[in-house]
């Protein structure tokens, strides 16, 4: 092959193409390693190119993911990843937009944006790595932490019942909802492909153990219930499934049929800017 032919041959994209080479700050054994690997697998399986994918995050251990990929990354303000991604996707509909973060970032400080991202249904995928603890600040309760779990900040537990993200996502209008486990990288990659391909706002809750502050989560490997959730197109049915099942039940829960949000006018030609002055002319 001559040089030109080499340049024109479509090179197959591999998971390795999505690695940046930046060394993660995560503890050894952190569940988030599995998510960054599965994401690379999913994007390679879809033959997307890193420059056409944007990975957007807030603050927290799992929000470090963008820099560990070779995609365009955005590591922004705590809790605001969804609005940032929303602006990006609406301004640049050609990009594949992935949002990553944790349970504190997404459900506590960013809770309002979670509701409205589900409701707005912009075509993007939100991956929440839920370990039921604030890891980066060294072990405080998050909205998904069990009420009796002790921390230095809440020595007698919070006494508050856990937030139910999948039910909230369903009630708020997310178009694709699934729960996966970082310990099953192939199954996780498979769910991520489905989430990215599904139009509208896709929400994937990934059980991602924090072995430093929640060492008991090592047992999730044995406790998760694989394929326990069955995909439904009916929101009421999906709600019953998630409420009646174990919190460690895995699978795709819901696939909605809503068209993605698109505020752009699709009127043909844009006017020259000076036409707007006619509104002011006396």
């Amino acid at each position, binding site marked *: 092959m001559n040089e030109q032919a080499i340049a024109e041959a479509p090179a197959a994209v591999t998971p390795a193409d999505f690695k*940046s080479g*930046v060394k993660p700050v995560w503890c050894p054994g952190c569940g988030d390693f599995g998510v960054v690997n599965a994401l690379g697998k999913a994007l390679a399986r879809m033959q997307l*190119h*890193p*420059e*056409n994918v*944007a990975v*957007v995050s807030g*603050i927290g251990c799992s929000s470090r993911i*963008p*820099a560990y990929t*070779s*995609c*365009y*990354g*955005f*590591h*922004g*303000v705590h*809790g*605001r990843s*969804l*609005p*940032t*991604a*929303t*602006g*990006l*996707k*609406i*301004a*640049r509909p*050609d*990009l594949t937009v992935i949002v990553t973060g944790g349970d504190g970032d997404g459900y506590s400080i960013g809770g*309002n*944006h979670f*509701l*409205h991202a589900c409701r707005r249904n912009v075509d993007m995928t939100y991956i929440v790595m839920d370990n039921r603890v604030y890891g980066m600040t060294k072990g405080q309760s998050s909205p998904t932490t069990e009420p009796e779990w002790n921390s230095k900040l809440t020595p007698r537990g919070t006494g508050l019942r856990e937030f139910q993200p999948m039910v909230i996502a369903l009630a708020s209008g997310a178009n694709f909802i699934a729960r996966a486990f970082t310990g099953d990288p192939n199954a996780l990659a498979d769910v991520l492909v489905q989430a990215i391909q599904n139009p509208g706002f896709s929400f994937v809750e990934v059980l991602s153990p924090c072995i430093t502050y929640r060492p008991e989560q090592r047992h999730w490997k044995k406790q998760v219930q694989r394929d326990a959730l069955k995909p439904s197109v009916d929101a009421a049915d999906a709600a019953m499934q998630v409420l009646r099942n174990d919190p460690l039940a895995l699978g795709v829960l819901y696939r909605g049929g809503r068209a993605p949000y698109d*505020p*752009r*006018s699709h*009127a043909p030609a*844009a*006017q*020259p*800017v000076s*036409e*707007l*002055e006619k*509104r*002011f*002319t*006396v």
Partner: protein
Amino acid sequence: MDSSLADAPDARSSVSIALAGSGGAGILTAGNILLEAAAQAGYYALMTRSSGPQIRGGESAALLRISTCPVECMEDRYDVLATADWENVDRFTAEIPLGSDSLIVGDPDRGEAPAAFAQSGARCANVKFKVMAKDVDGGRPNMLLAGLVAALIGLPEDAIRHAIAKLLAARPDAIEPGLIAAAAARARVADDRALATEARRLALAPARPHEATRWLLTGNEASGYGAIRGGVRFVAAYPITPATELLEWISPALTEVGGVLVQAEDELASINMAIGASFGGIPSLTATSGPGLSLMVESLGLAVAAEIPVVVVDVMRVGPSTGIPTKSEQGDLNIALFGFHGDAPHLVLAPNSIADCLRTTAWAVHLAEALQAPAVVLTDQFMGQSRAVIDQPADEPGGDPRIVAEPGAPGYERYAVTESGVSPMAIPGAAGITYTADGLEHGPAGTPSSQGADHITQSSKRLRKLESADYSAQWADVEGDGNLAVISFGSCTGPVREAAARAAADGIALRVISIRLLSPAQPGLLSKALDGISKVLVVEQNHSGQLFHYLRSHFVLPVDSTSLRKPGALQFTPGEIHRHLIDWGSN
């Protein structure tokens, strides 16, 4: 423009009108008809509106100044206060100062003028608007009010007819009764001896012939159009008084030029949406007021660190907290300058008139894009919500576009340390130069770093790009000469200019400096503008003298520098400043 106020002939060059009444009386419609008619007749004009706290109903006032020359502020007193009824109109006492030369026109069947107005010594004229309205099929008192005032101040009949037809276009069946009512009011002025005498006294000099196109618009609309002219094609919006009209104007306008607006769930979302869109390569903006700006400053720090252009227009209102949302104040200068955490070099600009809202907002977009930094534009409720007749502004100077990195650029580093401090920005979609934009401190490649050396290098780079830019052409408006200078910004500039013109007539020569670029501070340019000045007065509308203290700490001022300031909600009048200038300038 200022000298033309002084050299007007005997006929008055400017007349000030206050229309007031209860909600639903159509006061604002009457005001808009007069404004449109004045524009049609070739006059300049300015109209502000005031209303009670109620969403619907309640009292409202339309305050107008119509003149043969451009107007940027209200007069010291109103020549005419005209009402269809007096319900709650006494709430406007402070906003509608009258003098013994003023005229109060009211309907005697709807009560008497409140004592606060009557005490001014103003003459009173009785017109039975309600009875007259009943004589017209479908007639409304507000059309009589508009017609009567138009006749009193000498607006031509065809101008008022045109204005009624234009403003009532959405309600075609109201046009004919409106025209009949206005004609009846005009006849009344001609037939009533007392009113005819008032009309001779109030009549405006003929409008000056002009070639230039005139525009009729609010400051919020001018800011919105300036944003689009500057290149903005993405806006994220969360409603807040008094910025909402900017967002409502720009929403359909963006659609026509291929842009898009998204309504956000809160201001935390709107600023981050704008930052996300700009990261995608699209010039972006949001508009808000003080409480919203407070919510946005954390994310503006991110835009500084990650070097993402974004513009926030803050239409300032009375604060702190909810304050007085419908009234003007220049109290957000401190938060705009100093509200960011860490060392966060950024741009702060302030337009100084409704027309300037266009130029300064466009300039803010140009600077933000060229320097890859956030810009805060400080307008205020007065400029934002007032509607004015202006000469079509000259095209603003163009700006340098954002410097974008080439796909596949070898050895590309997003935050490469350059001489200017600006580094080419990779835009998603461009292969071979991907990077992660980060609020974490980083090295040149964008990789997070906790090294002090990286922090020093990147901090210097972020400061250098702002400090090395040349702002000299537009940083301020410097007008007039003398060894005294008045420094101001924003909507205080209008009354300062008019006061300076009056002081000049008294023999006090002044230089007026209205600062358009507030950050980065330009002490060198101010020192040059203060060449030969021995004494400085800083005029601003807030309680603590935020501009005065900023100038004292970051600029070199003469030892004899003092502050003239007052908080909202009432704008400075030219007379208030003029009186101060007389004492200050002659000591």
